[in-house]
């Protein structure tokens, strides 16, 4: 039990609307091991963002329980790093100051974390950009700053909510490679939400497949492709087999067309 990074039991979330309730999540259960890379894939409206917000402590569930590293989630906590779809940088802070935001908020003392910030910026290829402002960077670079910021206080796990959804296809592939490299180096638990099936298969050790109305986990698929995975892996028959299988789940449930 102690090695479970994330444990979710019969988790439900009900949104009340004018004409009754909508079940964003219905009795979801799963567990994620320490150091595992888990991707959640599903169409929009399947409750995957709601799930992440609950794990991040930004929303409270209507039923069931969720715990991180053995302790129940009772609100935002400091041993996780969150990356959102948009980079969400503060334009009045330099790249370095943006990266150090969690340190400032948690009052950990900038001096102590300066070397770590520089190392992380080097890891994501942004050394020499630390004095720049966000608007001087491209979208992909801004998202790399956001990832660096999520890693700065050395959290046990990363929660990522469609972090590359707003990037163009080429940049996105590049960022997928980068994230795999960072993950292999840092060995953190990653909980990664996406609506792209190939992205989920490419990155994850395990893919949770979710369907909407009500939001449910319908499949839990282990991806046994060797690492590091090059982009070419996407053209292999095994890769195609995984994506076909996942897509099939959506077709059965009527979640996606064709």
């Amino acid at each position: 039990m102690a090695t479970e990074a994330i444990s979710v039991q019969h988790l439900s979330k009900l949104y009340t609307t004018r004409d009754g309730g909508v079940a964003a999540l219905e009795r979801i259960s799963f567990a994620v091991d320490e150091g595992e890379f888990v991707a959640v894939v599903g169409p929009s409206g399947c409750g995957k963002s709601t799930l992440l917000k609950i794990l991040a402590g930004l929303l409270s569930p209507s039923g069931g329980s969720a715990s991180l590293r053995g302790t129940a989630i009772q609100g935002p906590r400091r041993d996780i790093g969150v990356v959102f779809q948009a980079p969400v940088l503060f334009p009045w802070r330099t790249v370095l100051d943006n990266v150090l935001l969690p340190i400032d908020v948690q009052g950990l003392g900038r001096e102590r974390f300066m070397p770590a910030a520089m190392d992380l910026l080097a890891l994501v290829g942004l050394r020499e950009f630390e004095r720049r402002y966000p608007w001087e960077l491209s979208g992909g670079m801004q998202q790399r700053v956001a990832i660096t910021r999520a890693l700065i206080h050395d959290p046990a796990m990363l929660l990522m909510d469609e972090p590359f959804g707003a990037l163009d296809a080429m940049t996105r592939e590049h960022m997928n490679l980068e994230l795999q490299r960072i993950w292999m180096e840092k060995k953190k638990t990653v909980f990664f939400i996406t609506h792209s099936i190939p992205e989920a298969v490419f990155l994850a050790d395990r893919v949770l497949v979710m369907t909407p109305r009500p939001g449910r986990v319908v499949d839990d698929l282990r991806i046994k492709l060797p690492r590091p995975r090059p982009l070419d892996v996407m053209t292999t028959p095994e890769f195609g087999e995984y994506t076909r299988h996942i897509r099939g789940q959506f077709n059965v449930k009527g979640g996606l067309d064709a």
Partner: protein
Amino acid sequence: MRSMRNVALSVLLFCVSVGAWEALVRVLEVPAFILPPPSQVALALWRGFSSGLYLQHLSHTLLETLLGFIAGSALGLVLGTAVALSRPVEFFLYPYIVMFQSLPKVALAPLIVVWFGLGLTSKVINAALIAFFPLLVNTMVGLRSADEERVSLMRSLAASERQIFWMLRLPNSLPFVMAGLDVAMIFALIGAIVAEFVGAQKGLGMLIQSMNFNMDVSGQFSILLILSVVGLLLNRGVMMIRKRVLFWDPSEKERIEQERVSA
């Protein structure tokens, strides 16, 4: 090269229009108490400054304006912050503030002068009352306009409300606050002049009044000229501060870019 030509063109345009004004007034024999020729206005300006008269009144009006601006802005900032942060304050106070604002404050000037006398105080208070509203509204809107995702990020870091205010809401409101200051500066000048019209011992507004009684129209023109230059300079001053403070704001960068292109 192009900018040189533009400068030359604008100087030429200025000379031609002033020349046309002078010529028309002389040819049509318009009496000086209706519309004085520019040469008379220039003469009045020269006399006013060389005798020290204008400078004395100008410095007085400037003092009123700046004090009113500072007091009004401070009040607007504090009230705007209070309204933005506290629902009860908004509920109980804001309706009165809006009622007060919908009142033409020029109409308050006579009362203010009765209450606070002919001296500096009444002018500063009138200037402050007119200047404070744009700042109040802009501070309020600015503090509330923090992007939902940025707030989520701060919350995910387990930031306290106080930290969210100082690290996110406050810097985020600065573009709005600076825009409010821009307007407040000019409003403060209007407030000071209006109060001087109603009753004062010193100041450019009072000088305009007394010149009006004496049918000294070229004198009035010369003071209008001074006032518009003063307004321009005050506005420029605020813009310079704004450029420093808001170097990161996209709309500010656009403006800087535009200035670079036109220079």
